[in-house]
């Protein structure tokens, strides 16, 4: 079934988009991430311009993270105080990100920036996660006890001022690194059209030492708010959010996410991390290959002013 996208200005096959949204939703539900970094590339592949894809995927992630956040809230797996501090930074970061996005679009280097940041972020984060998962598996196999929280390993982060007690996560921490992490995630999310969950979750676990019980739920709240904010800003400044495309993605995504969440509970934590690491790494390498090999066509055309609309 063909459907004409009013902002992207091209007809797409609804079932193709649904079919693309569902597995991404499945993966995102399984790993507790937004999955934007998986959704944007196939959209670009079917002909949606990178800018429209990034802007529309933002609202898609808002939908899937909201449905996730609701179920985590019911299980009391969200730390509201921690989410609030992350959001303060996240909001500023998103605004900065949308502004940067607009500037780079004018310069004609937006596609390069999107591709480069995908390569750098995905390969590093993917490799780290893969390595972590692998080490955890080996440790379990060799029978060594895993020190969950090394006492006395409080780094410089725990010496920062403005400390605050986050009750539900049972941690006592300075608000500065929390807000900074929120800002970075908000910025990356707005520029790359990703929720940033796959970066935020490891950062919260390894840097802030937030217990795993509240990590995913809290990160979903941040993803939700930054993506709602990003949708609004992209709509106001760039007029690039395609609501029809977003709706198709949402329907496919949230459906897939529910099945993913169920499947996720059956897999062991370190296997999950290993798999997610591999997935992230694979997407990163795919982008890297695209940058390095000679493109099929050296020329590209982009409209700079349009009669469209």
């Amino acid at each position: 079934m063909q459907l004409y996208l009013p902002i992207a200005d091209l007809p797409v096959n609804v079932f193709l988009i649904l079919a693309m949204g569902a597995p991404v939703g499945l993966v995102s539900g399984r790993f507790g991430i937004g999955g934007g970094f998986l959704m944007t590339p196939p959209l670009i592949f079917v002909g949606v311009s990178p800018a429209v894809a990034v802007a529309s995927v933002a609202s898609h992630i808002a939908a899937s993270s909201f449905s996730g956040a609701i179920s985590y809230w019911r299980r009391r797996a969200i730390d509201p105080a921690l989410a609030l501090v992350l959001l303060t930074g996240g909001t500023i970061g998103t605004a900065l990100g949308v502004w940067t996005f607009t500037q780079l679009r004018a310069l004609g280097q937006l596609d390069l920036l999107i591709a480069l940041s995908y390569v750098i972020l995905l390969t590093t984060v993917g490799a780290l996660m893969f390595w972590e998962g692998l080490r955890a598996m080996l440790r379990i196999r060799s029978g060594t006890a895993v020190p969950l929280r090394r006492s006395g390993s409080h780094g410089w982060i725990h010496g920062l001022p403005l400390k605050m007690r986050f009750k539900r996560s049972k941690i006592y921490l300075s608000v500065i690194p929390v807000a900074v992490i929120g800002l970075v995630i908000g910025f990356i999310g707005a520029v790359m059209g990703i929720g940033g969950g796959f970066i935020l979750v490891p950062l919260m676990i390894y840097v802030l030492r937030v217990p795993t019980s509240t990590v995913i739920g809290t990160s979903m709240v941040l993803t939700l708010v930054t993506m709602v904010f990003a949708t609004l800003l992209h709509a106001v400044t760039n007029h690039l959010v395609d609501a029809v495309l977003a709706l198709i993605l949402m329907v496919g995504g949230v459906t897939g996410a529910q099945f993913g969440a169920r499947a996720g509970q059956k897999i062991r934590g370190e296997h999950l991390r290993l798999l997610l690491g591999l997935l992230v790494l694979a997407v990163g390498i795919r982008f890297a290959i695209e940058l390095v090999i000679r493109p099929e066509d050296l020329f590209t055309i982009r409209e700079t002013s349009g009669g469209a609309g």
Partner: protein
Amino acid sequence: MKLAAAILAVGLAALAASPARAERLIASVSNHRVTVTPNYSGEELVLFGSVEKDGNTPASRNNYDLVVTVSGPRMDMVTRRKERRFGIWINTDSRQFVKVPSYLALFSNRPFDAIASPEVQRRQQLGLNNVLLTQRVGPDYADVVPNDAFRSAFVRLRSAHGLYRQETSAVTFLTPTLFRTGIPLPAEVPIGTYDVEIKLFADGALVTRTETAFEIVKVGFEQFVANTARNNGLGYGLVTAMMALMTGWMASIVFRKD
């Protein structure tokens, strides 16, 4: 007196319809308003018309050639070239095309070389190589030679999307004076007004020309969405965000496990 009036009448008639204007072109497209609906996936219009001769037409003239030029709304476009820098392929050089047709189709009944001399082809902009595509080169605005790398890449990429096309056998003469041609509009044609210019050639020279037009418009929902997104970004963003929240909320209810 009668003679003088007759001479005057003939003189006036000669002025009004000089031998070059001996024919009249009448043409029309099958649909002047193409609407983009949710299931729009391209369309093909039909252009038909006839050559009307009058008393001034040389009796020997029977072979006509016809060139139809369809040009879509004009836009500014940038063509960028990738180059290898630091091991990766990035956009380096770029050229701006100023107010060029977003859709361009040139149809004729036989190859342009057979219709007119290269000089006439250039003057009448027959063929994609001869159509004026203004580029901004530094402070100057000019078209460049057809084999310029950026120009040919531009034409090639637009052609690959079916947005620029040239077919020298697309016009058919049903009778020596009655003609028709199809105007294929691929799915991604831009919205706007399309000008159709029809030029009649005989013996390698332009005889007469006429123009018609059609428009491609978004209607109903598509137009509403596109207009709202452009004119009321905040409201549009709010509605989209609300839609996202509603979808997420509904999913969590539908799929609730407990």
